Each structure stands twice: as structure tokens, then as C-alpha cells.
């Protein structure tokens, strides 16, 4: 068994135009920076991207948007990005906005083999238009579907050669559910160790969900809104 690849370029070598990928992170926190750069370099186009957010103009997913590589975004919140706004208003970019919790659960469900489930979020709003609804316990719910992707691209703090992953602090976010939902899941990590060095009680994503792993380099970890205490 060998899941370790050299770098992001090798990890995405068989990704094709028009495919769907999930990208972990919340804002710029916990995004797979190395793989984003490799995607930009790849020139892949016509991609559908499932990501909670859309990056900023000059970092994260914004870099892919700027090069028009994304055809459609599936997200819960896409502010903080002027180029995104421009493409959306001009009709160059398609956007499917989904309540954040429903998005997270649809991704987990996809990975867990649950094709559909009911949630209350969005009932009675435009999110519920055209969707099946049903009452449970006196409350209306919408039927929502599991999501999977050709590739799930996630960022973890530590990983081992068998693909086991540990996330750090709030850089976990969408990475953990997305790791479950890729036909091929690629993990980039800040620290890569041999199998057996991680405590098996502390693993967030068991290696079974991860097909490729590599040691990321040069993490910028840009902060979107640095906020400090008034002294």
C-alpha cells in the first residue's frame, strides 16, 4: 500500500476538465494551499467546486476564479471576493447557495452512503422552492441529497503514510466531512509521519477515506480578519 505522493501536482495528475471537486476550509482557514496552486498551474477548466466559501481575490479559491477555471460553485457564503461578484453578475459563473449545515450534512451523507435525509433548514424560504417537503414531529422539513465528488481535496495538520489525519483547531471545519465524500480523496498535511506514530484514539479521519497524501510546503496561512484585543 502506498498512498504517499510527491506533491500536489502528482496528486491531481488524473483530474480532468469538467470534473467536480470538494475543497476543505472555512474562509481561508484550513484550505489546501498547495493543491490550489497546483490546480491553478494545471489549467483545468469547467470545474464544479463544492466549498463553503470562495476565497478572496488574490488567495485561495479566488486564484482559480480569476483564471476562469470554475464553472459552478456550490457554497454557503461567497462574500469577500470582487472577481467572484463580477463573474456571477455577468453570468460567467453559476452559483448554488446552500445553508451551511445542510451543505456539511449533505457531504457527510454522501460519504456515509446516505442518499437523502430530511432537515428543517430552508423550509418556507426560496431554498425550499421545488424541493420535496414533509412534516415530522409537527415541523416541516426538506428532503436533501447526499453529495459526493470526483475529488475531495483536504488539508490536515498531521497525517501518516496510511492516510490517517488529525486536524488542528478550527482548521478542521469542512475538511473532515469532505474527506469522506471524494471518489478520490487527496490530503495535504503540515506534518507527515510513518504509520504508527499517530495515537489511534486521536485520529479524526481514518485512513480508509484517503487515497493520496503528501507533505505540503510553504504554507502562508493567511488571516482574513486579524482581530486583536483592545489593551
Amino acid at each position, binding site marked *: 500500500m502506498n498512498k504517499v505522493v510527491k506533491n500536489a501536482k502528482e496528486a491531481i495528475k488524473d483530474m480532468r476538465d469538467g470534473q467536480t471537486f470538494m475543497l476543505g476550509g472555512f474562509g481561508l482557514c484550513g484550505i489546501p494551499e498547495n493543491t490550489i496552486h497546483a490546480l491553478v498551474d494545471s489549467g483545468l477548466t469547467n470545474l464544479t467546486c463544492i466549498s463553503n466559501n470562495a476565497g478572496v481575490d488574490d488567495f485561495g479559491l479566488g486564484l482559480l476564479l480569476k483564471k476562469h477555471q470554475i464553472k459552478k460553485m456550490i457554497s*454557503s457564503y*461567497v462574500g469577500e471576493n470582487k472577481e467572484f461578484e463580477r463573474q456571477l453578475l455577468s453570468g460567467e459563473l453559476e452559483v448554488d447557495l446552500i445553508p*451551511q449545515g445542510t451543505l456539511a450534512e449533505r457531504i457527510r451523507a454522501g460519504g456515509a452512503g446516505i442518499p437523502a435525509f430530511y*432537515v428543517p433548514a430552508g423550509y418556507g424560504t426560496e431554498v425550499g422552492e421545488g424541493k420535496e417537503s414533509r412534516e415530522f414531529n409537527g415541523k416541516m422539513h426538506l428532503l436533501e441529497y447526499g453529495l459526493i465528488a470526483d475529488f475531495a481535496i483536504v488539508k490536515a495538520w498531521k497525517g501518516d503514510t496510511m492516510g490517517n489525519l488529525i486536524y488542528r483547531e478550527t482548521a478542521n471545519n469542512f475538511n473532515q466531512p469532505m474527506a469522506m465524500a471524494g471518489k478520490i480523496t487527496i490530503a495535504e498535511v503540515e506534518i507527515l509521519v510513518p504509520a504508527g506514530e499517530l495515537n489511534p484514539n486521536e485520529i479524526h479521519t481514518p485512513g480508509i477515506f484517503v487515497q493520496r497524501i503528501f507533505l505540503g510546503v510553504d504554507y502562508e496561512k493567511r488571516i482574513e*480578519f486579524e482581530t*486583536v484585543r483592545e489593551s
Partner: protein
Amino acid sequence: MSLDKNGIAKRIAQELKDGYYVNLGIGIPTLVANYVPNNIEVILQSENGLLGIGPFPEKGKADPDLINAGKQTVTTIPGSAFFDSSLSFAMIRGGHIDLTVLGAFEVTDKGDISSWKIPGKMVKGMGGAMDLVAAAKNIIVATTHTDRHGKPKLKTKCDLPLTGIKCVKKIVSDLAVLDVTDKGFKLIERAPGVSVEEILEKTGAPVIVEGDIPEMKL
């Protein structure tokens, strides 16, 4: 006199109880954290995956892996826990959050709320707002009573796209505290020096007024 943002936050903080798990939205709701009474313990949840939000970090100590749902750098309190987005919304959807405080463009006397989209303006998305309002046991809206054109934000029907229906339980505005009851808005308290008449005039829906309405104690 109408309350400022901090006054609204201060009044909302009076709704907190010891041991409450609370989700505070962006804007005025965030300020509520500054007014938690000293004798109680409240745990703040951030839907990006943190229970136990602490104060903002000291200068130079911000950790890029540690942010709140508004993407601001934060710290943690002792006893905090990190988790992924699906577990975070399991907490929210499963009714484990005791209180959710959020802002709004409009609220109706049925408890409907609009807060995420203004037609013609750039749509940024609903984030976690629809999940929060659909599932919270207890939702308080923090808002100004009227918009910047002086039009009522408390109405019988939302004109803007809805975030959720029949969910808001209480409104704390710069002028008043109102409960959303089966029979509509019910006036609970007045901001100091604000008359019942002014509140009724600036509310775009019928308001139940029973007996003397006390002033808020801040």
C-alpha cells in the same frame, strides 16, 4: 432615549442563564459576549467548529487556525472543544444550543425573519443562518426598530427573501423588548425614556400592550 448597539447587547445579556450554550451572530449579537454577568458561565459556540470562544487574541498572538464564524481570530477558554462542520450543525440542528442571537432585516409578528438577501444587491449567501433559525429552541433578534429610512423592520410580512419562518421568539431593539406570541408581537419592556406610543408608531404590525410596560433596567 433609544439604545445604541451596546445597550441592545447589554439587554440581551440579561436573557442568559448559567450553563447556556449560545450562538451569537455577526454584528450586534457578537457584542453580547461583553456583557455576560460575572456570576454565570456561558459557553459560546462558533459554527465553524468551536465550543468555548474566548476573547480576541493579544496583538501578535493571532493563530490562523483559530477563527470564529465571522473569520476573525479568536482564542479559547479552558474546557473548549474543536470539531468539524457537520458535528457543529448537528449541535445546532439537534437543539443542543440554548440560545441563538442574530440580526435581521425584517421580522414578522409570526416569527418569520429576513436576514440574508436583498434583491438587486450582491448575494453573499446565507451561511449558517437558515440552519440556526430553523432549529434553535430560542431565538432572539437584535435589531434597530426601524431601518435607516425610518421604515419599520417589525412587520406583518417580510418583503425581503426569508431566512426562516415561525422561529423568532423575542426581539430586542433599540426601543423595546417584544415577545413573538401566538397572537403576535407583545410589548415587554421599553428602552429608558421611550414611550409606548413611539414604539407602536414605529412598529409595522399590531402590538399587544397589557398593563404598565416597564422600562428596561440596564
